[in-house]
Structure formats: C-alpha cells, structure tokens
C-alpha cells in the first residue's frame, strides 16, 4: 500500500480545514470591513495610566 493513499486524503483534509476556517470567518463578518482594521492596527493602544 502506497503512502499516497494517506497523503492525498490528508492534503484534501487540510484544504478542507482551511476552507472551513475561511467560511467561518466570512460568516462571522470578518471580511465585511477590509479598510478600518488596517488603520486600527497602527493606532497605539491606550496605556492604562493614561486615563
């Protein structure tokens, strides 16, 4: 029995897992806004004693 019978399904499972993660992210609305997170990331977090 060749290793290919394990590797090919494994590749498909990995691809499927990535797809499932993508679908989950899309359904959670993570791709609804593609502009603001890019900006939000460069904003500095508040320092606690800043208040």
């Amino acid at each position, binding site marked *: 029995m*060749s290793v*290919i*019978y394990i590797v*090919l399904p494994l*590749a*498909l499972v990995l*691809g*499927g897992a*990535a*797809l499932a993660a*993508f*679908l989950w992210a*899309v*359904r959670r*609305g993570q*791709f*609804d*806004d*593609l*502009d*603001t997170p890019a*900006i*939000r990331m*460069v*904003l500095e977090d*508040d320092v606690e004693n800043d*208040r």
Partner: protein
Amino acid sequence: MTPPPRTEERVDCSHCGLPVPAGRVEIGAEEQFCCGGCRIVFQTLRSSGLGEDYYALRARFDDASGAEPARATGRSYEAYDRETFQDEHVRRIPGPDGAPGLAQVDLLLEGVRCAACVWLVERLPKLIPGVVEVRLRMRDARVTIVYSPEHVALSRIARELDALGYPAHPPGAEEQRELARRAERGHLIRMGVAAVCAGNAMLVAFALYSGREGGIDPSHAALFRWTGLALGWLSILWPGRTFLRGAWAALRTGTGHLDLPIAIALVAGALAGTWNTVTGRGEAYFDSLTVLVFLLLVGRYVQARQQRWAADAVDLTRALTPASCRVVREAGTPRESTEEVTLDELAVGDVVEVRPGEPFPADGVLESGRSRVDRALLSGESEPVAVEPGDDVHAGTQNVASVVRMRVAEVGASSRVGRLMGLVEEGLAHKPPIQRLTDRIAGVFVVVVCGLGVANFLLWSVRADLATAIDHTVALLIVACPCALGLATPLTLAVAVGRAARSGLLVKDAAVFERLVRRGRLLLDKTGTLTHGEPRLVQWTGDPAARADVAAVEAHSNHPIARALVRDLEEYARPGVRAAELEERLDGGVAGTVEERRVRVGSLEHLAAHGHALAPALRPEADAMESRGESVVGVAYDGRPDGVVALASLADSPRPDAAAVVDSLVARGWSPEVLSGDVDGAVDRVAGAVGIEHAWGRVEPEGKLERVRALQAKGEVVWMVGDGVNDAAALAAADVGVAVHGGAEASLAAADVYASRPGLAPLEELADLSGRTMRTIQRNLGLSFTYNAAGITLAMLGLMDPLVAAILMPISSASVLVLAMLSLGRRSRSRASTSGDAPETSSGPGQRTFERALPGI
C-alpha cells in the same frame, strides 16, 4: 479711505487648519477658529484630555483631514431616546441571568475622514461611562455602539459624537444593506470554495502530467483522476452554479450573455472529463475548469465590491440629510415646549419650528413668522420667494431668512416631494434596458463556437473515429471559453469605477461607461447645475472702502445674500475687525458698528426707510442692475449725510467652468439643452452665457420626464444632469443621469452617477473616462479573441493537448490583465500632469475620495 493691503500672515483655524475669515479673527487669542463647529470640537477635545493625542495622530497621517471645517450642530438628539426610534434601530442584547442587558445601535457619522477619526470615535467609552464598545467602519462611516441603556441615554452618546464633530444620523434602507451584505459574503464563500477546488485539482493534475512523462502506477493514476473528478464537480455545482444559472436565464430569454459560452465550456468539459475518468482513458479537464471558475469569480467579486463601495458612498450622502425636526407642543399656550422628532413621527396638524438654513420637513401652511423660502431644489427657481402666514410651504424647500412656524398638512407619499418620488419610480420603470457589449458579443460568439464545434465533430468523425472526434470537439469547446474576457471586463470596469471615484464621481452602475460612448442629447438643469444655485456678487459700485465694513457686518448673518457678500468681499476684510451691536432686520437689512461707524446694509427700500436716499449718480446703476434681474444691496452709514454710498448686485451666475465644459462636450458630439423650472428670462440669460442655443424655462418635473422620453422615443441617447427634486424623475429615466454636488436626496437616489465635487468639470471627466474604459475593454476583447482563435485552430487540427490548454488559458487571462493594468497605469500618470486646473483630481488614496463624498451642508 482705502482698505489696507493684506500683509498679515494668514491665520489658520486651530482645529481644521483652514484660513480663518478676517471677520472672525480674535486679536491676541491663542486659538483661532474658522467657525463655531471647530471651536466646539476643539474645546470638547481639550476638556476630555484627548486633544493632544488626536492632533498628533492626525498630523502623523497627514491626510486631507483638515480640509473641511468641523460641523458640530449642537442638536439635542432627544428623538433618539423615544420608543419609535429605539424600536426601529436599537437591538437589545440580553444580559446573563436576568442582569440588565446591553443595547446595540448602528449610526452613520458625518465628517469621518481619516485614521484619527477612527481613533477618536473608538475612544468614546472613555468619555462616556456606560458605553461599552464602539467600532467605526471607515468605508461607509458606520459606527456600531454597544452601550448600557441603564447608565446612558442614546441621545447623550449622539450629542457627544456631535460635539466631537461627527453629527450622527440614523441609518436607512437596512433591508437593502442586509441583502447587499449577504450577497457579498456569498461571493466570498463561493470564491473560497472555488479556490480550494482549483488548488487541489491542480495538485492532482500535476501528478498526472508528470506521470505521463515519468510513468505512473495505474492505480495511483485512477486515484488522482477520481479525486480531480470530485473536486471538479464540487467546483462546478457549487461556486460554478452562478454561471450555469446565468446561462439558463439567457437561454430562456433568448438573449446573449457572457455566462453562456462559459457554461458551455464547463458542461462540455465536465461531461467529457467524467466519461474519460470512468472509462479510464483520454483526458480529464478538471484542472482547467476549476481554475476557470475561480478566476472568473475573482473578477466578478472585485467589480461587485467596487460597485458597492460607490453605492455606499452615495447612500451615506443621502443619509446625512437631516431626518428630524422640532415640533412645538401646545403651541400658543403658556406650557408651550419644543420637542425633537424624527420625520417618521411627524403627524398632520403638528406645528413645526423651522430655523433659518433648515429645510421644511413637510408640506404645510405657514403659521407665524415671515421669511423667504429657497425653492431651488424643488422647482428650480433661483430667487428665494417671500412667504408670510397663510402661505403654503413644501418639503424639500429651505427656510432662508428667519425663524418661522408651520402647520403640517401633508406628510410622506402625499406630499409634493412624495408625489415626485412616485414619478421617479415611473421614470426608472421606463429606463431603456441596455444589453452589455460583452453580452452581445458573447451571443454571437456562442453561435460561432457551436457551429465550429459541429463542423469539427463531423470532420473528425469522417477522418478518424467517433472517440477522436469527441475528444477534439471537447478540447475546442473548453479552449473557446472567453475566460480572458470574463475576467478582464469586470476588472476593467472596477478600475474605472475606482478611478471615477478618485475624481469625485460616484458611479452606481458601470453600464454608464458603455452608454456614454454613444453620442446624443445632453439635458442640463439650470439652477444649481449650470449655476451655483446661490447668489454671487456680480458688481460693486461706489465707495470701495465700504467693502471691508460690509464683510464685517455680514460675517455673522445666515442669509444667503449675506453669505455671498462675506465670501466675495473676504479679501478686503481687515483681520481682527469685528462688528458689534449687530441687528438683523426681517425686511432685508443688517446693521452693525465697525470701528465706531454704524454701518447699515440692506435693500434700497430698507435703507430708504432708515432715511438713506439713493444718490442720483447711483440711480442709473441701480436701475441697470435691477433690469438684469440681479438683487441690489445698498450700503449706508448712520449719521452721515451722503445717503447710500455703495451698491452691490448679486445674482445666481453660471459656474466659471460651465461654458468650457459645455463647449468640450459639444465638441464630443453631444447636443446640449437647458431644462429649467425657473422663469424664461433667467433661463435664457444663463443659457446664452454658457453658449447653449436650446433652453426651456418653466418646465415642470413631469415636463422634464416627458422631454427625456420623447428624445428616447426618437432613439437618442439622453444624458441628464441635474440637482433638484424636480430633476429626479428625468434623472431616473435618462440613459445616464448625473446628480451634481449639493443635489437633493431624491436626485441622488435616482441618478446613476453622483458628482461629489462641485462644478461641471466632472462631466467632462466622465465622458473621457467612458471613452478610455471602452477602448481598454475593446482592446482586451481583441486580445482575448486572438488567443481563442489560436486555441480553436489548434483544437480543430487536433493538436490541442489538455496540458497546452491548461497553460494557454491562464496565460491568456494574465496577459489581458497585464495589458489592462498597464494602460490604466499610464493613464493615471498622464492625467496627473494635465489636471493642474483641478487640484482635487490628482489626490491619492481611496479614503480621500470618500471624504469628498460627504456633502458640505
């Protein structure tokens, strides 16, 4: 005395950085503000301790952030706390175990422009206890606020946002937005599935291709083939369903559609591939098919996204029109009180208070107060009309002069605006359908390819055997799929929509580009389109020194004539000189003390009533101004014997670029016409000034729609440009409707394109861009067909190998894409060098265009 030359340095506003009008400069003050809004925002920021960080952050992004003064409106927003509003817009989030829950609300914000705005708005929980989380989305300036209704009222949050310079508005058209959001997610999901299928199908196909050279175990080959088969069918039946459905619809209606040749290739390839996989001989085509599905979906996603972005920006502009008004309860009694309500809550019989500069919320009768009403957006009349108690006033017009009260007689669909909106729907229903160029070509293409396929099949079944004939015909059908076309066309259109947005044109429907390359009739509205839609200073006669005093006295008035005088006399104003003891009179006059001189500015009647006669020398001038239809304003000094010392005349004059733009559009083959609701004399004057021969005055909204239909019935392409509610129906019915900057909400909703930049130059750019876009698409078509012709020839000769097809297809797509990108890149450089006259057009990233989409209210 002549005004001193302005040698002083320009004073910049401490908040927005724009120059401070001389009449508002405070000598010796550390902070200077160009307007009340900027002052409020600056003080709010400083008192909350966020000011320093905010300005530092804004400076770091060095964006166009300071391009507009802040607009803190100081509204009370109490309507946001009432049940009707809460029920409609606020979602409750129940707390755990019966604890008091939270509430979530979406609002649209005015004035969002840069990263510093995101930072500031999202700091809201620090400013107001009880606000839990705030997320701002820049694309459509939508903020999602989670707050605890136990601790803080929504109106308080809205007031705070307002004080920060972001007046809040309730979002409208939620169902539509939800649909659009779902459609976009659906697109993404299909793309994701198609990507996984394509990647893995390529993986097994590579193994098979290399196995052909190096030898492969038959059982392994079978495994790869069956895996490819499964992935291929998954891709075609799930994400690829879009194309099958489109093709089916095209077949049923008997029209050409780009989906048709794509679906033929998909189905033929999949069936042949399945047969070959089951029988274990011949080629499976699933790698090519899955990649095809994926690439086509990418193109469509990009176009849909760009299109939705433009539509969002227009929606935002529309949502920013005030949606509330002040109702006076128990009017006339001692217990009288005013209450802010949303327009939906307004009922027939309510008494509404309308301040100067505000629009009338509904149709009704004036109860008290005298004022002037600007009806430019509703009827196209350029001169404000005087109204007094008992007169009818209409929604969609604006109160100009003073505070009045009206009793509501009609709301919603039965009001004049409501009836006009009904007309818009009628106009939309009659909009001529357009068959896309690519779809028309696809129709012909399918016939040709099917013909060739049949010929090829017959030829090979005679020359060789049936199996060979099937093989070669399937190869032909797959390679004939116009994938380069299907990918490049949406991407080119998406880039064109983006480019248009960058020069201030929000294109809601990319079909506009196709319609505009044909020539036809250009219909232009007058007031607000060809002209500014507001008075401008035309002429100044008499004492030049009085100009500075007029600018100082009028600096604090809201009257359109006062604003025009301030704007046009600004250069003569003396910094730091302010008028005191201001007195604004309803009969059209303003008085104020400037450097101990009592200045009086107003109509000649007003001045005569105060004992200032018009000098005989100025009389002919005044008569000439009046005969030209201009408003005449006089200036006099109380306590001086010389009477009226200067005259200013104002009129709604054509935009400076109007004549040039009309000329250039005529040169492109458009024949212009003016359609206006204003009186004939004014229409003829403006038409003559911009060089248009055909002008129609006193045209009702129905008349405009009628004209559009009549021209279309004659087979002409109609391009309508307007700004008012009265233009909306014609905009909707025209082949291309463009709403210009400052237009009414109805015209924005009806038009295909919204010009978010003032002036008519965007029209010329739109025509240019359409020509360039269609040329790029045609070039792509040519290249794509060259590849197809080569592929079909190879297939008919029997030389087409599946491996060659798998390589040829991406190469053709890629080369068409590269060509499109290259031509677009070259364009943007040449444009930047030629657009010196309009600095806004050369601006950079997408977010700045977004900012320009916001109206100057």
